[in-house]
Structure formats: structure tokens, C-alpha cells
């Protein structure tokens, strides 16, 4: 490629980049009005609910039932629910039920005081559950629009 053509091409590329950058910057800034006004009026709880949906409502429900600093097992098929639970419920420690031996081995304390199930699969539903040779009794149900979505069991 000739030097002159390379120079012209570089100039065109930087020109195009500048055009894109300016357009997108203006578009971004305009989002403060077009998109963000839907967020600004919300408080933090409403924002979290808007972002994480029912999962957040369930965890808020769990927080209202279980005392802080508890040690609980969460049985879930959804990784996001587990990590959100770990975040929102701390200082309660949450261990992922299905992975408690593969992921943690013997590194953790296993005196769980609660076991929670979310989202529910049909076989989850019973009044008493035996987990790690310990019986846990159903104490609370989480429902959305009347539909059973999650369960909390206590040792």
C-alpha cells in the first residue's frame, strides 16, 4: 500500500472513529433523560427488585425470617440465586446444598440451622426434610401471586 494511501486511510479511520465516538457520547449522555429517569425515582430496594426480580424478593423474605449470622444451606438450580444469597444475606453464611461436599470439602462448619429451597421443583415439597442426617421442618413458604416459589426449613 502506498504511503499516501495509507495516510489517507488512517485519516479516514480516525475520522470515522471520531464520528462514532461523538455520536455515541451524545447518545449516552441523552440516556440520562431517556433511560435513567425510570431509575432515578426508585429507591435502592426498588432498584434491586427491578434488576434481580423475584430472586431479590425471595432473599428479602429469607432475611426477614432468618436471624443474622445463621449458617444455612441453599438448594437451588440457579447459580445467580446462590451468589445473590451469599451477597445479600451476609453475615449469614450460605452454602450451596447440591455442591456442599464437592465445592467445600471439609473446609467449612456444617452446623446448618436452616435449609432453603428456591426455585422449587416438585420433589422439594414436604413438611420434613432430612439433610446430612438431620431433620429440618418447614417453617415458611414464599409465594408470588399465590404460587409457591420457595420454602424455608428450620432444624
Amino acid at each position: 500500500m502506498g504511503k499516501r494511501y495509507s495516510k489517507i486511510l488512517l485519516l479516514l479511520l480516525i475520522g470515522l472513529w471520531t464520528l462514532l465516538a461523538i455520536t455515541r457520547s451524545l447518545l449516552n449522555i441523552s440516556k440520562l433523560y431517556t433511560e435513567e429517569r425510570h431509575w432515578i425515582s426508585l429507591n435502592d430496594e426498588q432498584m434491586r427488585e427491578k434488576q434481580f426480580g423475584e430472586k431479590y424478593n425471595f432473599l428479602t423474605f429469607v432475611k426477614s425470617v432468618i436471624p443474622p449470622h445463621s449458617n444455612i444451606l441453599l438448594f437451588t438450580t440457579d447459580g445467580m440465586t446462590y451468589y445473590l444469597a451469599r451477597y445479600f444475606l451476609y453475615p449469614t453464611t450460605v452454602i450451596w446444598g447440591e455442591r456442599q461436599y464437592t465445592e467445600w470439602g471439609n473446609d467449612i462448619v456444617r452446623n446448618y440451622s436452616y435449609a432453603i429451597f428456591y426455585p422449587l421443583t416438585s420433589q422439594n415439597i414436604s413438611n420434613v426434610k432430612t439433610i446430612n442426617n438431620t431433620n429440618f421442618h418447614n417453617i415458611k413458604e414464599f409465594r408470588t401471586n399465590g404460587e409457591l416459589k420457595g420454602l424455608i426449613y428450620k432444624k
Partner: protein
Amino acid sequence: MNILTILYVIIFIILAGYTTGEYFLYAKSYSIIKKIALSYALGFGFIGIQMFILSILGIKWNYGIILTPWLIFICYFFLRNHKYSYHNLNILNKIKLFSRIEKLLLILLVSLLIFVGIESVLRPVQAWDGWDNWVFRANVFYLNKGIDNYYFSYTTDSYPLIIPLTTSLGYMSLGSIDDRSILLFYYFFYFALGLLFYSSIRNFADRKTALLFSVLLLSCQNLIRHGGRFEAGQADLAVGFYIFACVIVLLDYLKIKSTRLLLLLTVLLSIATQIKNDAIPFVLLSTCFVVYKILKEKKYKKLFYLIPLPLVILGWELFKKFNNLHPNFLFRNGIEFHIERFPIVVFNFFKEFGNIQNWNIIWIVFLFCIVIYRKHLGTYILVPIFLFFQLLFYVLIFLLLPQDPVTQINAISNKLLLHVVPLAAFTITIVAVKVFKK
């Protein structure tokens, strides 16, 4: 109110970095803009390391224990140096001398900085890695008033600690957890990157060019996202900022050969190792390069200035060893070498290069510059070399993973490129300045 409190903490961090930098590390030729940017990098790292040491010594954190030594040093510095005001900071008079285009670019740049700043504190943390890792750890350390060793068994992670440690200082100043205003710490990496990028270009280009390319870099959507819009709360922008800062200081050191700059480089590299493991290949290469230069000059005494780096790395490795921290989650299932993946991995990186949504056309322009104009770079050729080495390392990691890499690459390639995008933009700027100067 919480946002203001966090802003005070950030100003304090910058002051801590600034006074230490002015006293021991900065070159006299450094502009105030460059010093402010580097001061954030230094202060953030120093306070994180201080909190780490206090925790190891079993001292429960409180505001007084952490900040009093800094406060004394800051007062001592300003009283001793009689630096009560900066007369040359009359910004408004300087702006009056700007051309119309420069004023427009400045307005755009400032608008971007304000926009991303507002975005960062508009919502509580939203990014997965934020609530899963970086912000979560700040919460844990704040509630425990120190590093809680059970935390490592509980989360099975072994990430470096500076980001969660320093950001937990924000919670300490608030007296509670607020995962919205704490994101300002992450935004300030975006802000400091902008300052550092602009001031570094000003070393060899006019104001208009520096403003233009700063706007071009800071308007990358991925930078905007990690700086504040939805993705703030992750460490990748910080890694990009530290890598860029190290490269700039390294280039300055090669020019000036000052031992102060060598020490500054060592300190920044040491902090970078404790931001995220991803910075380590860059740290290794740049350290090898510096050692080679020192040996070539036969100024062996300069090697002593590198001592903080192995000390920091060794300290962290010993901590991991004594506390039985888990190995990196990527390699818990062992290592397998899959050379056959090479084309797939490289293809996926190129796919991300072409992702205009994330990067505008920065990678296309960068590759064009490297292919056509690499000879124009002169000593600056180091910049793309560091970039390609870092990317090569990531490619190698994907070849070694036991699990299929494609899903991983798609999920994280935009974050990996964030580590080196300032280097790409800097390379383009150097080429553009040299080509259009002639």
C-alpha cells in the same frame, strides 16, 4: 450525603498518594494532572496494603488507626513545602486560550466524565463480579473490621485484596454498607485513566490531539460501562489503569533514568500484582525488561529499587500458604494443554476486536497502525509489545483450561481487552502524531 463522604475519602486517598509521590517518587517534570492520576493509583494501593498489614498484625481496623499516620504525613508535607496554594492552577484563564475545537473537545470530555460519574452512583452494584466478588468482599471485611480468615474457606477464592480492602474504608467512613456510593471508587479509575492518558499524550503532542484521543478512548462503551454504567464494581478497569500507568512510568524512566521513577515503577507494579492476578504476566515482562536495562547499563545498585516488588508478592504468597487459600478456580480441575484450540481462541479474540458496540473501531485502527506503521513507533514499540504479550498470555490460559474455552471467552474477552485498551489507544495516538506531523 454518602456520595460526598466517599468523595472526601477519595480526595484523602489522592492526597496520601500525592504527598508520598511528591516526596519520594515523582519526576519534577510531571504535570499536576499526571500527578493527580498517579496519586490515586498510589494512595489506593498504599491504604490497601496498610489495611492488609494491620489485619495480619491482628489490629482491628478503625478510622483513626488507618488515617492518622497519613494525616500527620500530609500535614507535615504541606507545612514543610509551603504548598498552600497552586497559583498556576488558574484553569479558567488557561481555557480562555483554547481554540474553538479544543473547547468543544474539552466540553465533550468533561461531559463524559460527569456522565459516567453520575451513572456510577445511580444504582446499587449491578455487575455479577461486583456482588459476587469485589464489592461482596468489601462488605465482609468492613463487617469483620479486618480480614476474616473463615471468609477464604467460605468463598473458596484467592483473589488479591487491595480493591476490597481500600473500598471497605469507604464503608468505615460511612459507618454502614452502601453499595451504591462505594462504586465511586471504581469510577475514579476511569477518571484517573482519562487524566493520565491526556497528560501522557501532552508529552509529545499538542493539546488538541491530546483532547481528541482522550475523548476517543473514554468514549469506548466498554470503558463507560466499567467506569459507571452497569458494570462498575469490577476490577478490570483498575487493571487496565495500573498497566497503563506502569507503561507510562516505564517509558519515562527509559527517557529520564531517574531512580525516583524506577522506585515509582516498582511501587506501581507491586500494587498491580495485588489488584488482580491478570496483571501478573505484564508485571513479569516489564520487570524482566527493567532488570535487563539495568544490567545492560551496569548500574547494579539500581536493582535495590526493585526490592519492594518481590517483597509484596512474597508477602501475599506466604499469606495464601499459611491460610490454605484455594488455588485459582480456573485450574482447580488441573491443567490440560489443547493446542488445537488455538484457532478458535484467536478467532474469538478477533471477534471481540470487531465488536463495535464495545470498542467503536479502536481495535481496527490499532491493528491497521501496527501492520502499516509499526516502524514509526521507535522506542514506543514497547507499548504494543506489552499489549500483545498480555493477550498472548490470555490465549495460553485458554489453551490450558480443562473446560471448553468458548463460553469463557465470550463471557470475559471484553474484560480482558479492557486491561490493554489504553495501550492500544496510546499506540494509535503515537502513530497518528508521527504520521500527520510529517
